[in-house]
């Protein structure tokens, strides 16, 4: 608002001023609405952001951020010289990319399947149950995963061996582990992920279906030509948001589903940061990695938004 006022006083031409006045007369309500959330962002999000300078300082807990010495880009050099940084970066990309291919479409498909169910009761009950995994913490999921997929003690391998097959090292061989990792991800998040799509599906124009029925279109055709296009904006929004997170990855899932035997694949940036940053107290290095992730994430989200706008017309900005 201050900025608006100052520009206002600078205005000379009466016509210009008049235009401005009508603009604000018309739009002040929107600025009023925005003011509180913006204040929130300034205080709670931008307020602590001076902490970013830790990346350029030899951070000493007791000297505080301002009291610590500047070291320029030294910490960046240190991180970029670490072998583990590249391995964890590669793994982060790899796991996120696989998730994008496998776990991103899963809720879309599931939501459409739920939408196609005719029995309202079955629909209601199954929806409620599909969300349950989202509420179970990874610690508990981890325990269950070991009980199911262990090589010697796991139930699935017990069954396989009972049928005369070789045991599969689902958790200790890195490629099988990838499958297990993806599977648990789909299992945990697909149901929860349907919610947004179901909300979007409520906006589908029923008349289109009636018209298609008259034309004798098959169910799959209707899904392809009516259902999917109507949730396209939601898909695009979520896809862009997801692409923005390509270099960031949650801590719990790779940490808990991962184990030392598959460390080659399961060690990701978040576990790396945890190790060097929180456990070893090297906040400077952790901040450097965080800054790197932020810059790459920002480039990804703006880039994908740009491409999406050009090709589909939808975007988040």
């Amino acid at each position, binding site marked *: 608002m201050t900025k608006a006022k100052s520009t206002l006083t600078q205005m000379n031409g009466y016509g210009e001023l008049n235009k401005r006045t009508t603009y604000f007369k018309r739009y002040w309500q929107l600025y009023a609405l925005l003011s509180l959330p913006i204040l929130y962002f300034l205080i709670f999000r*931008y*307020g602590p952001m001076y902490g970013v300078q830790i990346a350029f300082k030899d951070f000493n807990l*007791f000297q505080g951020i301002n009291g610590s010495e500047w070291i320029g880009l030294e910490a960046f050099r240190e991180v970029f010289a670490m072998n*583990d940084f590249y391995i964890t970066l590669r793994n982060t990309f790899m796991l996120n990319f696989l998730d994008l291919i496998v776990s991103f479409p899963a809720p879309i498909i599931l939501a459409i399947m739920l939408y196609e169910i005719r029995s309202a009761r079955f629909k209601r009950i199954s929806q409620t149950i599909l969300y349950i995994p989202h509420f179970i913490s990874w610690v508990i999921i981890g325990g269950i995963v*070991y009980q199911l997929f262990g090589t010697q*003690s796991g139930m699935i391998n017990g069954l396989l061996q009972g049928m005369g097959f070789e045991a599969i090292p689902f958790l*200790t061989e890195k490629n099988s582990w990838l499958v297990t990792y993806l599977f648990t991800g789909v299992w945990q998040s697909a149901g929860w992920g349907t919610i947004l799509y179901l909300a979007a599906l409520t906006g589908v124009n029923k008349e289109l279906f009636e018209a298609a029925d008259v034309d004798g279109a098959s169910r799959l055709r209707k899904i392809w030509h009516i259902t999917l296009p109507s949730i396209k904006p939601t898909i695009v929004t979520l896809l862009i948001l997801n692409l923005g997170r390509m270099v960031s990855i949650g801590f719990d899932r790779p940490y808990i589903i991962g184990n*030392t035997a598959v*460390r080659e694949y399961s060690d990701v940036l978040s576990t790396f940061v945890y190790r060097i940053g929180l456990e070893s*107290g090297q906040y400077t290095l952790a901040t450097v990695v965080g800054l790197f992730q932020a810059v790459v994430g920002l480039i990804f989200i703006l880039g994908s938004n740009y491409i999406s706008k050009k090709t589909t017309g939808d975007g988040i900005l």
Partner: protein
Amino acid sequence: MTGNMRRGVMKKAAGAVLTALMGVSLLSGCGSGSNEGAASDGSGDGKRVTLKVEVFDRGNSPSPHTITNNWLTQYVQKEFGDPNNIDVEFVPVQRSEETTKLNVLMASASDVPDIVFVYDSSVFYRYAQQGGLTDVGELINEHGPNLKEYLGEETLKFGQLEGQQFAIPGKRAITARYNSYIRQDWLDKLNMPAPTTTDELYETLKAFKEKDPGGLGSKNIPMGLALAPSGYEPLIYSFIKPIQGDLTYSQRYELPLHEGFKEAMQFMNKLYNEGLVSQDFSLDEEEEQLAKDFQNGNVGFITEDVGQILYADGVLDNLKKNLPDSEVAAIDTLTNPNADNKYTKSRYGSNGMYIMIPKSSKRSVEAVKYLDWMASGDNLLTMSTGVEGENYVMEDGIPVVKEDAAQEIKDRVYNGGDMAILANGKVIGDQETNEEAWTVGFPKQNQELMRQSIAVANTDTIGPIVFDRPIEAEAKYGTALNDKLKVIIVQSTMAKPDQFEAVYEREMKDFMNIGGAELQKELEQALQEQG
């Protein structure tokens, strides 16, 4: 929109963000840094002061107690606080998040308790290195006669760095650490004697595998193993050559720097590839599967923390319930070819946690007085065990907990172990007394086995070297190396025998690259200085 305009917007955005940012950080006082004057002797002027003491919160406070207000906090207030005109305030810290939280508290200066503590020596070194701790040497001389007597020079040494007393180490009641258990009924069935050397153990395990005395088929696990220290450390310690006398480097991740470490890995590789150890050990960091396998009677031999399986309704009791005919014996069998075939095994240092007084604390005198009070009279015993006659009775100088006491009475000391920070375990007197006091806490039927376990665990032990200066590489690389150690163990153990050499060399090279080499250099230098 044109590229040009976009750039313009971004520029403006950046400008506004910076302004906003500066405004707010000015508003919030720009963080910490100001430690207005360190220790003062505030108690003299007769004003009532507040002493803040950290306490671990494990979320196990029984109603109506809370972590900040319970029988023990009241006891402290009444016995120590009121007579000294001090309000003792306890600051709970979640047990599993202690370091993260402590770092943040330290950085905030004003919120940090006057007494804090950690178990992790590298955290202590880091704090000392960054100049955040009070040197309490003089304060102890002046205000802590009981404290000094209780800890003794040997334990105090753990908190000294370059002649300055930056921490007050707690005292460990018992240094016994690991021992081994074997299924005696399996041995009897095969008519074999208990193994007495590593080679004999290997033969015994092979017999367990081939002859399957438990009749278990594919469930048979000759030796139970988990990716936990009690699983791999006893094996490693039975191969490595001590650095000097009966001493090794103190940190777990320093094990690979000892001669003989490779042989240990080779042995584990052999055990794994011949199917003699738990095949899923790399998944079992919490020993849950191991406990399961053992109490279901599938395991022939394990190494464990002393007493770990002997608690009431614990692993052994469950095994007896599941298989009434089973019998377990404590044995000593891992002999070290690199140390005159002795039964070398790790023991704990005589210190417990590192208790520290932050430099920003204005109550360092009161803090030392509090610790001195805790070390005097019966206070430590009361804080860990409760009131004599109500919570315990003395038998031959050993406090025996009254099992028939009312729950309400027992609940008094539910967090006694966490409040009595000066002691790690129950410190009653000398080692032997402490051991006996510990033993009588076990169920009657397991006490004899407990005594044997302790005897085994105390044989041919190897302790940690204590340097009087911090090893910088420990603070810097400790966590990463600790993580790498697990990778070395798992990868070397699980490699195909013909690939062992290559895998081991690759992982060790990595270990050296990420800080191991630097650590080794520093350790050797420190060793020389120490003479």
